[in-house]
């Protein structure tokens, strides 16, 4: 296999996306990604993720190759109403979790109905 081209390929990570009301939670599988090098940005309502993966090859003769190795990239159109300054992300064991909080003004609010 042409190992020198591996880092040029990018892959689309599988994700779970959960709207929890106060925030949107995005969980992405990024096995092999270097946690310190992951870039998460939010611009014009679009959250972009780039998780670089260091090139690696198995030594010797390849017998079976079921997946390729390369950086992960994916973007999510979330729209307005999010507080970009409070977006947080952490990566553990090859799983990236991104918390995107809504602006307080647009969070769903439960109104208590008072009885007279």
């Amino acid at each position, binding site marked *: 296999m042409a190992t020198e081209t591996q880092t040029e390929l990018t892959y689309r990570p599988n994700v779970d996306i*959960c709207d929890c009301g106060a925030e949107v939670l995005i969980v992405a*599988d990024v*096995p092999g990604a270097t946690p310190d090098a992951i870039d998460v940005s939010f611009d014009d309502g679009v959250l972009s993720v780039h998780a670089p993966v260091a090139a690696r090859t*198995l030594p010797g*003769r390849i*017998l079976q190759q079921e997946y390729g190795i390369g950086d992960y990239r994916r973007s999510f159109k979330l729209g307005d109403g999010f507080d970009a300054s409070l977006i947080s992300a952490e990566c553990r*064991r*090859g799983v990236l979790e991104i918390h995107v909080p809504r602006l307080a003004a647009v969070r769903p609010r439960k109104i208590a109905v008072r009885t007279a």
Partner: protein
Amino acid sequence: MPAFHAGIAPRLEDLRDEFDRLWTSLTAAPPLHGWPATPAERLFPAVNVSESDEAILVEAELPGLDASDVDISVAGDELVLRGSRTGRPEQPAGNGEKPAAVTWHRRERGSGTFERRIELPVAVDATRVEARLVDGVLTVTCPKAPQAQPRKVAVRSS
């Protein structure tokens, strides 16, 4: 697949996702010995396997798992990987007493138990198999049994 937006948008987005998946499957390097009868994407975890003079090396992507979550054994001429990956609950508990009302827009990450059997082309020394799991990537080194290792024959000159 759950709709992420209302109206025509989800269909277009789903179509694009399908194309992305197809493109990824086409651009991913195919196995040297052809595609297996069962599509590899249905097998979990996907593996890459190589053979050096000393060992058979198996690499698998297992995001979210700890070393203790994976059971690795050698049975006959097969390496067996077993384990489980827990998914997120449908309704994660909120801050209050009642579970928060949540909506899942995408659930692409699989969960549950898995068992993957990988045929080893040569006899290996099961007592010396080593594995490490770093950043969701499992690497298993199966040293070849002495009789399976290449032997260099010295040629004597008379």
